[in-house]
């Protein structure tokens, strides 16, 4: 078998050498059209004078799908002279105000988009967005399609190089919304991008590279981007933070904030610079609206203590379980129950949004009692270890008597 292997190898190598020219000859042959005709002819002859645009365009999604330079720019891409090429409905660089309409000429056309399973409502949505409405009002500084998607180098959002890939979205939006220059002369806040980067959402996205972390578009919408309506902020947050929202709606704050004309979640958590959930804030946050020393502040402090004591209880039980494991004692059952207790504790935090003590205490109480149960049981088991030590005393008592008996036998033998 092994002796024949070199012969076999030589055969395969020879076959490869023979096949290589045949395969190479095909693309080298100039007369027949290349296999994907759109790939090389997408830019037509425009690329002769516009090489940079040609390179950008040929890597884009459009170049793969039978879209050519002339589709957007007009003219004739089969001619090499400027007058001939720049004729026949040549549009040149489209005006900013015309871009959405130009893109929509294909992307709002159901019959054209069906083959790609793409939605066709982007243009309609855009027109309702902050950008679209201001553009309609004649402000051409607002974002149009090409500002987010690029002009020649349009890539699908699943491509990590794309400007609309989830990890890149904040930077794309921040190009305008994080720049003091573009914001000059408008009502736009320019620091939202920086705020977002410091937020728990931004850190999750940028620092941890979590593509599921919410970006700008998750709250503001994609093509219909606009600040959520005043009363809708809570609903927007509640899409992900549904438990918090459920408890918040059940509590007294929603009605009070609505009456006072204050936004729901944002009043405590801020809007773009949202910090990570920290239960200790229960003790300090209330004085933002309620007077220091008020009943409400005391309630917040009590909620915090409630969660704190339950956490301490579970930590203590966990430490005990670890101690028992080193003995070793069987703690698998306890680990499962402590996980259950931690789940209760995790539910106590959303429940705190109701600002109702009995709701929170329901969860923390359950967490605490599971922790205490586990502790008592582990103590009982560790007690067996203490019993061993007690039994050791009995053992030595027996042992000493044994030695006395043996000595007596020895003596009796000596006597005999």
């Amino acid at each position, binding site marked *: 078998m092994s002796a024949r292997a070199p012969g076999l190898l030589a055969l395969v190598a020879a076959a490869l050498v023979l096949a290589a020219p045949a395969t190479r000859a095909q693309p080298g042959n100039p007369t027949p059209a290349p296999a994907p005709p759109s790939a090389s002819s997408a830019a037509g002859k425009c690329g002769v004078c516009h090489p940079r645009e040609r390179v950008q365009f040929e890597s884009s999604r459009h170049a793969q799908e039978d879209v050519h330079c002339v589709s957007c720019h007009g003219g004739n891409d089969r001619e090499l002279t400027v007058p001939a090429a720049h004729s026949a409905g040549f549009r040149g660089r489209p005006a900013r105000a015309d871009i959405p309409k130009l893109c929509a000429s294909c992307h709002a056309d159901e019959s054209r988009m069906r083959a790609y399973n793409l939605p066709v409502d982007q243009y309609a949505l855009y027109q309702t967005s902050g950008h679209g409405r201001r553009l309609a009002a004649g402000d051409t500084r607002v974002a149009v399609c090409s500002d987010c998607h690029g002009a020649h180098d349009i890539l699908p959002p699943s491509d990590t190089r794309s400007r609309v890939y989830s990890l890149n979205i904040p930077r794309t939006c921040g190009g305008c919304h994080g720049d003091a220059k573009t914001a000059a002369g408008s009502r736009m806040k320019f620091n939202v991008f920086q705020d977002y980067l410091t937020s728990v959402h931004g850190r999750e996205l940028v620092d941890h590279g979590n593509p599921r972390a919410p970006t700008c578009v998750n709250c503001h919408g994609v093509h219909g981007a606009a600040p959520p309506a005043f009363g809708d902020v809570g609903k927007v947050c509640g899409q992900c933070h549904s438990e918090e929202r459920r408890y918040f709606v059940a509590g007294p704050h929603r009605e009070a904030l609505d009456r006072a004309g204050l936004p729901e979640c944002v009043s405590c958590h801020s809007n773009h610079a949202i910090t990570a959930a920290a239960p200790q804030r229960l003790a300090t946050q209330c004085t933002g609206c309620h007077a220091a020393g008020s009943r409400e502040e005391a309630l917040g402090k009590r909620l915090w203590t409630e969660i704190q004591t339950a956490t301490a209880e579970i930590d203590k039980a966990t430490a005990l379980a670890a101690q028992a494991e080193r003995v070793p004692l069987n703690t698998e059952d306890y680990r499962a129950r402590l996980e259950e207790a931690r789940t209760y504790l995790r539910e106590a935090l959303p429940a705190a949004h109701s600002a109702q003590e009995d709701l929170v205490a329901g969860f923390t109480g359950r967490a605490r009692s599971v922790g205490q149960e586990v502790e008592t049981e582990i103590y009982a088991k560790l007690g067996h270890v203490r019993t061993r030590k007690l039994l050791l005393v009995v053992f030595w008592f*027996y042992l000493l*008597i*044994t030695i006395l*008996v043996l000595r*007596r*036998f020895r003596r*009796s*033998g000596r*006597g*005999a």
Partner: protein
Amino acid sequence: MVDRPDSVAAPQPAAEPSSRRRFLGTLSQIFLGLWGLGAIGVIGAYLRPRARGEQVAERIVRAGQLEDLRIGEARLVRHGTTPFFIVRQDASRVLALSAVCTHLRCILDYDRERRGLVCPCHAGRFDLAGNVLSGPPPRALASYGVTVRAGEIFVHL
């Protein structure tokens, strides 16, 4: 060195064995014997076989997905010392039959062609309802309760 502590643990017959001395000697022997009893107790408790394969720990056994089993087909489930066949009778009904032959406790095979269960030891045959068709088995196979929940078969042993 300590090869025969027992041989010396026996009392020395004294020149005039008084009853008190003999009683003390017997008492001492009993006391030393307690060590042996203790050792037997400790080692016995430690070595006692765990009831693992003999007792069926779980009374309810997962027997796989219903859709993996074609209608009219049987599959062996190797569960401890109580292996059983699950037989799908129609779209929703499943039967669980003991796979232990009622003759001499051999494990039955599924005969795909003749749709029955065959004992490899003495060629006893059962149909897919557990009834004896031919051969030495004295009685029908035991069957177990079956429930199907969310497409999964559970057998109650």
